[in-house]
C-alpha cells in the first residue's frame, strides 16, 4: 500500500509539471483536477485500508546520503491519509467546475497537485529530514496558491504574513526534531521512538512541536495568518487549506507528542487544554464580527482547531494519569471532530466559492436572498451550517457530544491544574458551540435569506454541475456521518489503540446503532432514531394540521408591524445582527467601542457612528515584534555600507569572541 501512495505522489508531481505545460489549454483543468480527483479517491481507499492493516515500512535511496528517506504507513497516517483523500477528491471535483472562469490558470495548476503531494509526503515521512522537506513543500506550494491573485490589494500582505509564519513553524519543527534526536543525532523516527529522553528535552520538544504544529493548525496566538491567507486563495484551495492542511498540522502534533515522545507530562496537557479552549472561543468571536464570508470561515476553522486540541489535551491528561480508556475516548472525539471539520468546512468553502462566482463578492453585507436564486447551493450550505453549529443529527454534534462525554468522565486526577482546566474547558466549549450557532445563523441568514441587498445578489445564478455535485456529496456525507457516528468511532479504534493504548467499546454491535461511549446507563445517543422521530413528528404535525385546519395559503406583502419598507436597505445587516454579541463579548475581548456623535438640535451636520475594535493578539504580540524587528533593522543598517577593512575587522573580532567563549566554556 505504501507503494501505491508513493505512486500517487509521483503522479501528483507529474500532474504539476503537466499543469505548468498545458495550463493555458482548456484541457488543462480537466487533466489536473481530474487527476487529483482520482488520486484523492485512491488515497481515501488506501487510507481506510491502512487503518486496520499492519504497519508498513519503506526506505528509499534518496535525500541525504547514507540516511535515505524512511517512509512508514501506520494506522495514524492511514486515518489522516483518508481525510486528505476525501478533502482532495471533494476540492478537485469542485474545482473542475469552479476553475472555468480562472483568468490565470498557470498560477494555480502547477502548484495545486504539488501542494497535495506535499501533504501526502508529510503523512508518509518517517524521518525528520523527509518530514521537514515535505512540510516545507506543503507550505511553499500553498503559499504560491495564496498568491495566485497577487495583484489584488491586501493579498501580498497576506502572503507575506503566511510565509513568515510558515518559516517560523518549520523552524520550530526543526528544533523539535533536533531536541528529540539528542546526542545520538539519529533523525529516523524509529530511533526517536526508542529513545527515552529526560524531562528537560521532553518539555522542549513538546513546546516546540506545539508551536510548530500549532502555528500551522491555527492555535491561538499563532492563528493570525489563517484569516489572512485562507480567504485569498482560490476557493477549492481555501477548502484544502482550511479543511485538510490544518489536519496535517494536527497530525504533526500527534505524531510528535503521542508517538515519538510517547506521551507528555500533565502540565503539557494543561497548556494544550487552556490554549484549545481559548482558541475555540476567540476564533468564533472573531468569526461573529466578520463580514467577509471566506474570512469568517477561516476564523471558524480556528474555533474548530481549538475543539480538536481540547480533545487532544484531554487525551494527554488522561494518558499522563494512567487512564487509557478515557484517553481513547477523548482522542477518538478529537480525531472524529477533525474528520467532521474536513467535511463541513470544505463544503462551506465550496459554498462560499459558488457565492463568490455568482455575485462577485465575498462581503455578506452585499448579498441576501440567495436561497431563491441558488436553491441547490443554499440547501447544501444550510446542511453545512447545521453541522458546524453542532446541531443534531449532523456530524458536528456527534463529535462535540463525544468531547463533552470525555470531559464528564472526571477521573480522580491528582493535579490541580487539570482539575480546574477541564471544567473550564467544558464551559469554553459550551460557549463556543452556542456562539458558533449564532455565527452561522448570521452568516446564512444575511447571505442567503432576506432580500437581495445589491443588484449583483439579485442577479445571482446557480453554480455549475460539478460544483453542485461536490457540495451535495459533502452535505450528504455530513448527514450520514452524523447519523452513523458508530461507524467512524469503530474505524478510529486502531488509531486510538496505537496512540493511547486503549480503544472505545465497539459501537456497531449496539442495538439500533446507538452510540454508547462508556456504558449504556451512563450516556447514549442515537442520531438515526432521533432523526426519524423529528422527521416523523414534523411530518405527522404537517399532515394533522392540513387535515384539521385550513389548507389555504395566501401570499401578501410582509406585515412588519404595519410599516413594510420596500427598500432592502432597512433589513438587518451583518453588522447590526452581530452588534448585541459584539457589545456583550467584544467590549471585553476586543475593546470594541461604538461612539455616537449626535449633533445638537439645530445643527445641520450629519450624525456619525464610529465603531472601533482591536485584536488583542495582533496588537499585543505581533505589532510589538514587528516594531522590534524594524527597530533592529534600522539600527543595523549602518553596517551595510562599510569599507572592506571594517568588515575584516568585524570578522576578526567575531572570531576572537567565539574562541574566547569556547575556551571559557570548556
Amino acid at each position: 500500500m505504501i507503494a501505491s501512495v508513493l505512486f500517487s505522489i509521483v503522479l501528483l508531481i507529474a500532474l504539476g509539471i503537466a499543469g505548468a505545460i498545458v495550463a493555458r489549454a482548456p484541457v488543462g483543468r480537466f487533466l489536473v483536477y481530474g487527476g487529483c480527483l482520482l488520486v484523492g479517491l485512491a488515497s481515501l481507499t488506501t487510507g481506510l485500508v491502512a487503518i486496520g492493516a499492519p504497519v508498513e515500512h519503506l526506505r528509499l535511496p534518496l535525500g541525504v546520503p547514507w540516511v535515505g528517506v524512511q517512509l512508514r504507513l501506520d494506522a495514524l497516517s492511514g486515518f489522516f491519509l483518508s481525510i486528505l483523500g476525501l478533502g482532495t477528491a471533494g476540492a478537485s471535483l469542485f474545482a473542475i467546475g469552479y476553475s472555468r472562469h480562472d483568468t490565470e490558470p498557470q498560477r494555480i495548476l502547477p502548484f495545486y497537485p504539488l501542494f497535495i503531494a506535499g501533504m501526502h509526503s508529510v503523512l508518509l515521512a518517517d524521518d525528520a529530514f523527509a518530514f521537514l522537506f515535505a512540510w516545507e513543500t506543503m507550505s511553499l506550494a500553498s503559499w504560491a496558491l495564496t498568491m495566485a491573485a497577487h495583484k489584488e490589494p491586501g493579498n501580498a500582505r497576506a502572503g507575506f504574513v503566511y510565509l513568515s509564519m510558515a518559516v517560523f513553524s518549520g523552524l520550530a519543527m526543526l528544533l523539535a526534531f533536533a531536541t528529540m534526536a539528542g546526542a545520538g543525532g539519529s533523525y529516523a523516527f524509529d530511533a526517536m521512538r526508542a529513545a527515552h529522553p529526560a524531562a528537560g528535552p521532553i518539555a522542549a520538544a513538546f513546546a516546540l512541536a506545539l508551536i510548530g504544529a500549532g502555528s500551522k493548525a491555527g492555535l491561538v496566538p499563532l492563528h493570525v495568518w489563517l484569516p489572512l491567507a485562507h480567504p485569498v486563495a482560490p476557493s477549492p484551495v481555501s477548502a484544502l487549506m482550511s479543511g485538510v492542511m490544518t489536519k496535517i498540522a494536527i497530525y504533526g502534533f500527534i505524531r510528535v507528542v503521542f508517538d515519538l515522545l510517547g506521551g507528555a507530562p500533565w502540565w503539557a496537557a494543561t497548556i494544550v487544554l487552556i490554549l484549545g479552549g481559548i482558541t475555540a472561543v476567540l476564533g468564533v468571536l472573531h468569526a461573529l464580527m466578520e463580514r467577509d464570508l471566506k474570512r469568517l470561515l477561516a476564523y471558524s476553522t480556528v474555533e474548530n482547531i481549538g475543539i480538536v486540541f481540547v480533545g487532544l489535551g484531554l487525551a494527554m491528561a488522561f494518558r499522563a494519569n494512567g487512564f487509557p480508556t478515557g484517553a481513547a475516548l477523548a482522542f477518538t472525539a478529537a480525531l472524529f471532530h477533525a474528520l467532521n471539520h474536513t467535511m463541513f468546512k470544505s463544503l462551506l468553502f465550496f459554498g462560499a466559492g459558488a457565492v463568490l462566482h455568482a455575485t462577485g463578492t465575498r462581503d455578506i453585507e452585499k448579498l441576501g436572498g440567495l436561497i431563491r436564486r441558488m436553491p441547490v447551493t443554499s440547501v447544501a450550505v444550510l446542511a453545512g451550517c447545521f453541522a458546524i453549529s453542532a446541531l443534531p443529527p449532523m456530524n458536528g454534534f456527534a463529535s462535540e457530544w463525544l468531547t463533552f462525554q470525555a470531559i464528564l468522565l472526571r477521573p480522580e486526577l491528582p493535579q490541580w491544574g487539570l482539575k480546574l482546566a477541564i471544567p473550564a474547558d467544558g464551559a469554553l466549549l459550551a460557549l463556543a458551540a452556542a456562539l458558533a450557532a449564532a455565527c452561522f445563523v448570521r452568516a446564512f441568514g444575511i447571505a442567503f435569506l432576506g432580500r437581495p441587498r445589491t443588484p449583483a445578489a439579485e442577479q445571482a445564478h446557480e453554480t455549475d454541475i460539478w460544483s453542485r455535485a461536490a457540495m451535495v456529496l459533502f452535505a450528504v456525507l455530513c448527514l450520514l456521518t452524523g447519523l452513523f457516528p458508530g461507524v467512524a468511532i469503530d474505524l478510529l479504534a486502531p488509531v486510538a489503540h496505537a496512540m493511547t493504548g486503549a480503544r472505545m467499546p465497539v459501537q456497531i454491535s449496539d442495538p439500533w446503532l446507538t452510540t454508547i461511549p462508556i456504558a449504556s446507563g451512563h450516556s447514549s445517543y442515537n442520531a438515526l432514531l432521533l432523526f426519524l422521530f423529528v422527521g416523523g413528528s414534523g411530518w405527522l404535525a404537517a399532515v394533522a394540521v392540513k387535515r384539521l385546519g385550513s389548507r389555504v395559503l395566501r401570499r401578501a406583502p410582509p406585515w412588519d408591524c404595519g410599516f413594510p419598507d420596500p427598500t432592502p436597505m432597512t433589513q438587518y445587516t451583518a453588522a447590526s445582527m452581530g452588534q448585541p454579541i459584539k457589545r456583550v463579548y467584544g467590549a471585553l475581548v476586543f475593546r470594541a467601542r461604538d461612539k455616537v456623535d449626535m449633533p445638537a438640535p439645530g445643527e445641520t451636520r450629519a450624525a456619525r457612528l464610529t465603531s472601533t475594535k482591536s485584536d488583542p493578539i495582533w496588537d499585543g504580540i505581533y505589532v510589538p515584534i514587528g516594531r522590534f524587528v524594524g527597530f533592529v533593522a534600522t539600527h543595523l543598517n549602518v553596517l551595510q555600507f562599510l569599507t572592506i577593512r571594517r568588515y575584516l575587522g568585524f570578522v576578526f573580532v567575531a572570531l576572537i569572541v567565539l574562541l574566547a567563549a569556547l575556551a571559557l566554556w570548556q
Partner: protein
Amino acid sequence: MIAPFLVQFAQMLLVLALAPLLTGLVRKVKARLQRRAGPPLVQPYRDLRRLLGKDAVMAENASWLFRVAPYTVFACTWVAAALVPTFGTGLMFSWTGDLIVIVALLGTARFVQSLAALDIGTAFGGIGASREAMIASLAEPATILIVFCVALIAGSTQLSTVAEHMLNAQVGLRVSLALALVALSIVTLTENARIPVDNPATHLELTMVHEAMVLEYSGRHLAMIELSVSIKLLLYLSVIGCIFFPAGLAGAGAGPTVLLVGALVYPIKLAVGGILLGIFEMSIAKMRVFRLPNFVGAALMLGLLGLLLLFVSRGM
C-alpha cells in the same frame, strides 16, 4: 416491552395535551394578580383551534424555509419533551438522547426559528434573531454547565437515569445542586421568553425578542409555533421537577398504581411551577436588553461555579 412503550406514548400525548393548559394557568395567575378576571384556563386551546382554522398568510418573498420552520420547531421541541420523564422514568426511548441532546434539540429549534425570522428580510425579524442569538449565546452554555453538574452528581447524562438517581439515592443537600437550581430557574425564564427577559404578552416593538421573530407568521404556522412555545415551557418545568423535586415520580418498571400516583402528582408539580412563575413575573419589571447579559450571565457563572466545585470535591 409493552409497558415502557405505553409510558412513552402516554407521556408524549400528555405533554401535548397539558402544555396549553399550563400556558393558560400562568396567564390566569398573572391576570388575577393584576385584579383582572383574565381569560379562561382553556383559552390557549381555543386560540390554537382558531389559528388552525384561519388561512395562512405568507409574505410574497418567503422561501420554503419559512414554511418548513414551524413544523421543524414543533417536532424538535416535542421530541425533546418526549425524552424528559414527566410522571415516570420508564421511557422506552430515553436512551436515544441524553440531556445534552435535549439541549441541542432545543438549539436546533432556535436555529431554525432564527433563520425563518431572517427569511422575509424585515427589520423586525432581524432584531428578534439578533437579540435571540445574543441571549442564547449565554443561556445555552449555562444550560450545558447545569447539565454537567447534574450529570456528575448522578454519574450519567441520561435524564431518566438522573431522575432515578435523584429519586432513590441519598443525594442530600449539595451546594452544586443548589447553584444548578438557581441557574436553571434563570435559564427557564430566559429560554421561555418570560419577564424579566422578554414579555410574551407584548407587541411593543422595541422590547420584544421572541415575538419579533414570529411576527410574520399567521394561521396554522403560528399555531404550531404557539404550541411549541407552550411545550417548551412545560419541558423546562418538567426538567426542574424530575431533577430537583423527583418525589412522586414512578421509577422504571413501576406498577400501574405507582404510575397513576405519578400521573396525579405531575400536574400538581406543573401547577405549582406555573403559579410560581406567574407570581415571579408579576413581581419583577422587564429588563432593558443590555441589562440581560448580567442576568443570564449570572446563570452561566453559577453553573461554572457548581461544576468547579464538583471537580474539586466530590461531596459538594
